[in-house]
């Protein structure tokens, strides 16, 4: 009960997104989560070296026919980073193994790849992720694009407009389009969006926050 309460509290205060950076700097920890009607995710990782992070993740997914809780230990690796004079691009690999429970249960695994590109004004991300366990398949494909109206200094908060298109196999809400307002500060990453805003039946808020410490 205490564990569930703690998890719920963490989800409420740290609802993340898929940001360009999937880990912090060397010797840092990063907390990421996503919270929406059919999906709740929480991931905490620690980076002992540049380009490598180890952590744990938990995903609660409500599918078309079943509901599952998947808990994995995971690894995030930076395959390649391109540091350019006015931008940065990254190719990431992530994988997790653990256990699924709920309407189906057993060994779970969740490999994924992500590519992102970002300047101080423009942002793009593409991600493919397998989420598998016996009788469970929540493979997810997503694209994000965004822009900021102006550059800011390091101390200022920068607002971004971001749109994500995501499709997830076997989810209750399979296709999602989420326009969002993203605020990036040196201490946090905050995002508030509305999924499928034009559809009254599937319209749902999504709130994300990332913290590095």
């Amino acid at each position: 009960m205490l564990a569930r309460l703690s998890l719920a509290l963490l989800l409420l205060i740290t609802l993340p997104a898929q940001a360009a950076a999937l880990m912090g700097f060397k010797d840092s920890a990063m907390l990421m989560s996503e919270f929406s009607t059919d999906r709740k995710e929480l991931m905490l990782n620690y980076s002992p070296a540049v380009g490598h992070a180890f952590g744990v993740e938990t995903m609660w997914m409500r599918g078309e026919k079943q509901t599952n809780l998947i808990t994995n230990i995971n690894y995030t690796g930076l395959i390649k980073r391109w540091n350019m004079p006015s931008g940065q691009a990254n190719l990431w690999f992530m994988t997790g193994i653990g256990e699924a429970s709920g309407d189906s249960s057993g060994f779970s695994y969740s490999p994924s790849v992500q590519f992102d590109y970002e300047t101080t004004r423009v942002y793009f991300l593409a991600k493919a992720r397998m989420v598998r366990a016996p009788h469970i398949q929540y493979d997810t494909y997503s694209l994000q694009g965004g822009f900021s109206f102006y550059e800011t200094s390091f101390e200022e908060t920068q607002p971004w407009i971001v749109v994500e298109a995501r499709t997830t196999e076997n989810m209750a809400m399979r296709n999602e389009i989420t326009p969002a307002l993203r605020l990036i500060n040196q201490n946090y990453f905050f995002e508030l969006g509305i999924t499928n805003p034009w559809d009254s039946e599937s319209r749902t808020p999504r709130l994300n926050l990332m913290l590095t410490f």
Partner: protein
Amino acid sequence: MKKLFVIAVLAIFTNTAFAATSIHAEVKGMVCAFCAKGINKKLRELDATQDVWVDLKNRMVVVELKDQKTMSLEAFTKLIKDAGYDVASVEYINKTLVEIKADHTHMKEVK
């Protein structure tokens, strides 16, 4: 007399070398405050650091050093790399961080 001249010249150059009060670097890939937090944090943890300025717009990092403290350019570059970025150029500057900021403000006004 010659010896005195040589000593005087050496003293001037030596003084100039030690008078480097800041390190100035252009950093490639530094485009986001949330991502660049590591640079700021790690530099501030160093004993030699007096102050740090991360300028995202110009992809620039400046560290003002404490009096009598030194930091090698190699150590500085390693720290930036460990944060996930590349250093395009790095140099010592005999100016305080306030003076460097003032220079940049002046350059913007001229532009």
